[in-house]
Structures are given as structure tokens and as C-alpha cells.
């Protein structure tokens, strides 16, 4: 570790992995509720489990992004972090606010939680992914601003690299587009239209800038390829991301009351959205092939390559599968969407956070890489989780195709619940894959506790 203040990333990464575990446990509960409808009812109704599952995902990825920034920025700028104390303070505020929110979801009926947290004064709750009570939303803004202040000040006083710049733009974009979560008009169409300015412009926009810069950073470290080449790739990838992704927002504007020209804009631009993801795959493999050093951390390299491949499959291919308007007319709001969501989030954001953790954690623990034994275990967890998510996606896709056929294409369409009963087998298979995923995650956590011989950090 070149700079002492980088170490503040460690609690962020540990919290991220802890919340990730919670997310998976609630995912398994929901998966079981798909086939055993009354499981844990009424203690944990499906909607509560889903809120916990998706909100934990968002929060742990944010912990991962912030930890990554705290680790990367001192090294990129060649200067200590502006204020490690502020970073520690924000860590605790974010963790406590996050934990209180989750406890609130689980212990208080949602309507009661809305009342307790003054939702009537400024209603923002009860919209998918933005279910957080008003105080939590405000807390997110405060933490994000303090974090951005800290990062921006560090960059201002130090070396300004392209990786740092792209990361900073991604993080500022994240904060700015979150502000749309405070806009909740009573007209549902307007509500939905601008809801996507947070949701889509995050995951298919500014988050990809963060993704690209994290990947570029790790690739420089593990391959030793010239920074000029890596940063040129980074710029081209994020350029293609925003050129296709911004108007690609239109693929959400087909059936929510918006004008029909969005079917053309959305279809054409989102059909191009796989391009930056494909470039990301080519980028990762090309850089590793042209490596100028043999970095002892093989696990981190594997995660980096995996991010390229899985983000292309999950976000690129599975996104394209249902993004054209004539196809989406039938698939909109079915298990096809769920299939895409699972592989895209895992392949792009989960994997890139695990990539940076895999690279940075050993360094923060005073070694260039973990022992051979620990790395083998980490690579096992890579394959278990990745193969499990592939199967979850395949089974949900199968369920989705059947659902679309039975409920929407057939001449004698079935009702929703009748169609669901027909695809139970695939929900069971999905749940089994989910258990494999959990085993992979436990293996991953265990790999941190495996000792063995390690080399001192350079």
C-alpha cells in the first residue's frame, strides 16, 4: 500500500460483503416464496423480502464503489486522501442509516414506516428500488456529498489521471441523478418517466463509468500495460456507453403512456448498448494477453476477465434479447426481465466490486497477493457463483418464455396465476441454483481466512 489513507477502504469492503450476504439470504427466501407461496407469511411478505433484497444490493454496491474510490484515488492522484476522518465518519453514518432502514422494513408495516418518517410531507416512498423513507434518502444525499467532497478535494490537489476523472464523473453523475428520486408527481406517467432518470441513467449510464474506471485501474495493476493504452480504451468504452445508453433510456418508454416515437429511439439505441460491453470483454482479454508482468494475484485477474465476459452476457446479450419494441411488447414485465436483471447486475456491478476487493484487500493486509491456497479457494467461489448465476438466468429465461407464451401469445391466454403454476419446475431449479450461489458466497468469505505463505507487498 503506497498511501496510508487508502486503508479506509477496508471497512467499506467488509460492510459490502456483509450486506451482500444478507441480500443473497433474502433472495433465497423470495425464491422459495415463488414455489411455496405462504413461506414465512405473514412475518415476511414477498414485497418486504424484495425491498430488502434489492435495497441491500444497491447499498452494498455503493459501499463497494466508495471503498474502491477511497482505495484508488490516493494511488491515482499520488497524494493522501483529503480527509480519512471524514471517510470513517461517513462509513458509520451510512452503515447505521442502512441498517436502520432494513430493520424498519422488517419490523414495521410499510404504511406505518411511511407515517413515522413523514412521507406525507414529501411522498417519495413505495416506488420500485426507491422505497427508502425520506430520512434515509436525505442521508444518502449527505453521505454522497461528503464523499464526493473528499474525493474531489483529493483529486484537485494531486495528479489528474483519466481513470480518476472518469471515476469522478461517474460518482458525481450517481449523486446528481439520485436527486430525481425526490420528484414524485401524482401523474403516474410523469412519475415513471423521471423515475427512470435515476434508475436507467444509473445502471445503464453513470455506473458504467465507475465500472470502466475500476476495471481499468485493476488491469493496469495486474498487467503492467502502459497507462496511455488502457486509458484510451477506457475513454472509448465509456463514450460508447453514453452514446448508446442515454437515448437507450427510450426502451423503458414503450408502454407507459409516452409517445410512440420512443419505440424507434429506444429500439435502435438500445440495440447498440451491447457494443461497449463487448468492447469491455475484448479490452480485458487483450490487456491480459499483452501483460508485461506476472502479477501473483491470479484471482483478481480472473475476476477482471469475468467482469468483461459476464457483463457482456448479462447486460449486453440478455438485454438485447428483449429490448426491441416488437419483442418487448410480449416480454415486458415478465420473468425475462428478472433473468436479465440478475445476470446484468452480477456480471457488471457485483463482479467489478469483487474484482477491486480481490486486488486491494491483500495489499491492505500487507501482501501483494494471498497465498496459493487462499487464491484457489477464491477462484472456486468465482466459478460457483458465476455458474450459479448463469443457471439462475437460464431457468428464469425458460420460465419467462413459457409465461409469455401461455399468458400473452396463445389464442386462449391463461390468467397470471394459472400461468405461474405451469412454470413451477423452473422456479424450483432456480432456487437450487440460488443455494449453489450461497455456497459460492460462503466459500468466498472463507477464502479470506485461509492462511499460507504470502509474499510481502512490493
Amino acid at each position, binding site marked *: 500500500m503506497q498511501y496510508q489513507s487508502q486503508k479506509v477502504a477496508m471497512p467499506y469492503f467488509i460492510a459490502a460483503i456483509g450486506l451482500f450476504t444478507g441480500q443473497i439470504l433474502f433472495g433465497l427466501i423470495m425464491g422459495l416464496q415463488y414455489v411455496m407461496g405462504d413461506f414465512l*407469511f405473514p412475518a415476511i411478505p414477498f414485497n418486504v423480502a424484495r425491498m430488502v433484497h434489492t435495497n441491500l444490493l444497491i447499498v452494498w454496491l455503493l459501499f463497494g464503489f466508495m471503498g474502491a474510490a477511497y482505495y484508488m484515488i490516493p494511488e491515482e492522484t499520488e497524494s493522501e486522501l483529503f480527509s480519512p476522518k471524514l471517510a470513517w465518519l461517513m462509513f458509520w453514518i451510512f452503515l447505521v442509516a442502512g441498517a436502520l432502514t432494513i430493520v424498519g422494513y422488517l419490523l414495521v408495516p410499510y404504511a406505518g414506516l*411511511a407515517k413515522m418518517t413523514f412521507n406525507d410531507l414529501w411522498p417519495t416512498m413505495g416506488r420500485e428500488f426507491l422505497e427508502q423513507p425520506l430520512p434515509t434518502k436525505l442521508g444518502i444525499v449527505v453521505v454522497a456529498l461528503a464523499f464526493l467532497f473528499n474525493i474531489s478535494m483529493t483529486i484537485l490537489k494531486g495528479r489528474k489521471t483519466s481513470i480518476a476523472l472518469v471515476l469522478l464523473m461517474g460518482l458525481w453523475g450517481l449523486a446528481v441523478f439520485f436527486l430525481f428520486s425526490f420528484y414524485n408527481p401524482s401523474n403516474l*406517467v*410523469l412519475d415513471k*418517466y423521471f423515475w427512470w432518470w435515476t434508475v436507467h441513467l444509473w445502471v445503464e449510464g453513470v455506473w458504467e463509468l465507475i465500472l470502466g474506471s475500476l476495471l481499468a485501474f485493476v488491469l493496469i495493476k495486474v498487467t503492467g500495460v502502459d497507462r496511455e493504452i488502457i*486509458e484510451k480504451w477506457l475513454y472509448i468504452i465509456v463514450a460508447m456507453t453514453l452514446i448508446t445508453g442515454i437515448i437507450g433510456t427510450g426502451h423503458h418508454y414503450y408502454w407507459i403512456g409516452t*409517445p410512440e416515437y420512443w419505440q424507434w429511439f429506444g429500439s435502435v439505441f438500445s440495440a447498440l448498448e451491447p457494443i461497449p460491453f463487448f468492447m469491455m470483454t475484448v479490452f480485458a482479454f487483450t490487456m491480459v494477453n499483452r501483460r508485461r508482468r506476472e502479477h501473483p494475484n491470479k484471482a483478481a485477474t480472473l475476476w477482471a476477465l469475468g467482469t468483461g465476459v459476464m457483463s457482456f452476457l448479462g447486460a449486453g446479450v440478455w438485454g438485447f434479447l428483449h429490448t426491441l419494441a416488437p419483442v418487448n411488447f410480449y416480454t415486458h414485465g415478465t420473468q425475462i426481465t428478472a433473468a436479465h436483471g440478475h445476470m446484468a447486475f452480477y456480471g457488471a456491478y457485483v463482479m467489478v466490486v469483487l474484482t477491486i476487493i480481490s486486488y486491494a484487500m491483500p495489499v491492505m493486509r500487507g501482501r501483494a497477493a494471498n497465498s496459493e491456497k487462499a487464491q484457489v479457494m477464491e477462484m472456486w467461489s468465482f466459478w460457483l457463483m458465476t455458474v450459479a448465476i448463469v443457471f439462475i438466468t437460464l431457468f428464469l429465461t425458460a420460465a419467462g418464455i413459457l409465461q409469455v407464451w401461455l399468458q400473452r401469445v396463445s389464442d386462449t391466454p391463461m390468467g397470471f396465476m394459472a400461468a405461474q403454476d405451469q412454470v413451477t419446475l423452473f422456479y424450483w431449479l432456480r432456487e437450487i441454483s440460488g443455494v449453489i450461489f450461497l455456497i459460492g458466497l460462503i466459500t468466498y468469505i472463507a477464502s479470506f481466512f485461509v492462511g499460507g505463505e504470502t509474499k510481502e507487498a512490493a
Partner: protein
Amino acid sequence: MSQAFTKSMARNIFFGGSAFFFLLLVALTFDTMQVLPKRDHRENITPAVERGKMVWEKNDCIGCHTLLGEGAYFAPELGNVYKRRGGEFVKAWIKSQPTKVPGRRQMPQFNLTDQELDDMVAFLKWTGEINTSKWPPNIEG
């Protein structure tokens, strides 16, 4: 990538491309806002519809159901439920939950007042009248 293509060219494409397409999104949004009143029939958003949306949000209905195809995929689409089932059925259904049929997916009892039930139905009725370009494909949603 070839040597002739430099990092600063790549950076310019990034800044120029992003700025251009973001401005295009803003322009298209501006146009959409002009067209929307004819498609969302906002003149029919009564206070009951507004309150109904609040009831919808305060009980996190989107956590199980889809509304115009967005939400969770655990329970039926409700954007067209007013057309599919009618208002009285919707109210009776909400009041009679949970079904407690063993093994079947369960909907919680939300203890809505009669006023809240009426507001919810008003909201769902208005939602069903939005011009959604003929989506969903059939009445089953």
C-alpha cells in the same frame, strides 16, 4: 488500437458524444412533455386518483405487482385490472386477503378504509385509461 488514434481523440469523442446525446434526451423529453397531456388524460386526475396513488405507494404494492409492466413479477399486472375485474371485485379482493390457501402466494391484509379502497379503485381506473400503445397484448396483462 492503432497509434494514429490517440487518447485525446478518444476523450473528445467521450465528452462530445455524451454532451450531444444528453442534449438530445433533454430535447426529446421536452417534446414528450408537450404530447403527454393527450395520452395520459391528466384532466381526469381527481383528488381521489391522487390519494389512490398514495395508498398504492404507502403499501408498497409495486413490491409484488407490476403496474404498466414495471414492478415485481410475483403477482398479476394491475394497470388493466379495472378493465379485467371491475372496481367492486378489486375492493372485495383486497378486503378478503389473505386467502390462507396452503402453499398459495399470499397477499397481506392492509386494513384499508372504505375511503382508501375507493381511492385505490379511482387510481387504477385512471391508470387503465392511459394510452399505452395497446399494451398489454391481452386482458390477462
